[in-house]
């Protein structure tokens, strides 16, 4: 299977007829139903093809609805999977799962949430990428010519810790009811950890998070790239102890995410990269309105949060995209 070009580099589970039929039992959808036009070759992708690749990725049948919804999300014009695949920047679809299905299929939202050790987290994102590779024809060295690539190209999927969060979930923030199963695709790189082990007040921690976020992608980008902040439970506790809900947190955070453009113009500080002179003298937000997604996940101990930098946003690039998961 590796020699046929089907693998992402890791071993695959052989997609025998029996395994694929068992995989298809995970969805109520017909095997010949078209899920999406798969970039980059824009070929029709059936539920069955998704099942074949999900077997190879190591998914259990109950993960299949999440894989299908994730593919529907990434194969939209607004998410722009073609561009994400083709860009030299090392970004890929970061998939966040909300709703009861996350717990039911055993997804991890706690210890090592962005790391290893959980079958659902590890294989759902991988299955999505295998479909893009095998059905869409998007493989590294071909259409995918990323300079460095990142783990988000191998498969990056996790769940929000909803139970332990005092806030509304990301999916609720994006207009879904808490009882609905939702996958949200965000175009992002791998996570970087932001350390703050000394802040004991919400006022201090929010400033520190903002400092870290200002460097997301590059300290010299404003509004053009989105971001995803994964707040750990111990960091979240600073805000819940202070009585801050999600809107209050965002309001406070945004105050410290304002950037004086004069400090990041091209040429300032001896650095040729930067904003054009026409943008001098302005104060702009680091992220466009709605361009920073915030979720709660991670192990119970550890005064860290994680920042996942995005890519070109909006109509010019990629829009974070959510889809309801149909079982």
């Amino acid at each position, binding site marked *: 299977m590796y020699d046929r070009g089907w693998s992402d580099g890791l071993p695959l589970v052989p*997609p025998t007829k029996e395994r694929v039929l068992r995989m298809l039992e995970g969805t109520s959808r017909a095997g010949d139903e078209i899920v999406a036009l798969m970039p980059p070759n824009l*070929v029709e992708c059936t539920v069955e093809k998704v099942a*074949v690749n999900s077997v190879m990725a190591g998914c259990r049948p109950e993960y299949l609805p999440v894989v299908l919804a994730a593919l529907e999300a990434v194969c939209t014009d607004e998410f722009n999977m073609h561009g994400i695949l083709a860009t030299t920047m090392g970004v890929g679809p970061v998939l966040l799962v909300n709703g009861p299905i996350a717990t039911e299929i055993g997804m991890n939202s706690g210890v090592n949430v962005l790391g290893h050790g959980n079958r659902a987290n590890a294989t759902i994102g991988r299955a999505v990428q295998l479909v893009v590779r095998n059905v869409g024809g998007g493989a590294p060295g071909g259409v995918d010519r990323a300079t460095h690539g990142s783990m988000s190209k191998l498969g990056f999927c996790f769940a929000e810790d909803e139970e332990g969060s005092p806030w509304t979930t990301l999916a609720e923030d994006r207009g879904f009811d808490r009882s609905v199963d939702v996958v949200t695709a965000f175009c992002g790189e791998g996570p970087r950890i932001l350390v703050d082990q000394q802040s004991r007040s919400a006022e201090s921690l929010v400033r520190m998070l903002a400092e870290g976020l200002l460097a997301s992608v590059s300290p010299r980008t404003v509004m053009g790239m989105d971001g995803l902040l994964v707040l750990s439970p111990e960091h979240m506790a600073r805000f819940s102890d202070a009585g801050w809900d999600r809107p209050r947190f965002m309001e406070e955070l945004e105050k410290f995410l304002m950037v004086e453009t004069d400090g990041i113009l091209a040429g300032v500080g001896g650095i040729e990269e930067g904003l054009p002179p026409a943008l001098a003298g302005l104060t702009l937000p680091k992220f466009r309105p709605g361009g920073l997604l915030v979720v709660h996940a991670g192990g119970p101990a550890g005064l860290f949060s994680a920042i996942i930098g995005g890519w*070109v946003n909006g109509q010019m690039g990629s829009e974070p995209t959510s889809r309801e998961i149909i079982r």
Partner: protein
Amino acid sequence: MTEPVTVLDPTSEAAPGQRSLNPRPAELEGLTVGLLDISKPKGAVFLDRLEERLTTQGAMVRRYAKPTFTKPAPVDLRHEIATQCDAVIEALAD
């Protein structure tokens, strides 16, 4: 001997249409050459220089730009270039 395992095909089972490039023109005199800017910074710097050199060699130059470098060129734009030009040069970036 173990029994061979039959696996299902994970690919689209359809090869994308392959089209070969037109032969390289022997000379540029009298040809129309399209210059496609993908809209990344400094692509125009490269294309401006190419336009100068192509014009010197007797080619007529038409300039085009993708709306954004992050997405494939729209079908209409590709059609426009294909019908108006004898050759095209696409400028990448930065």
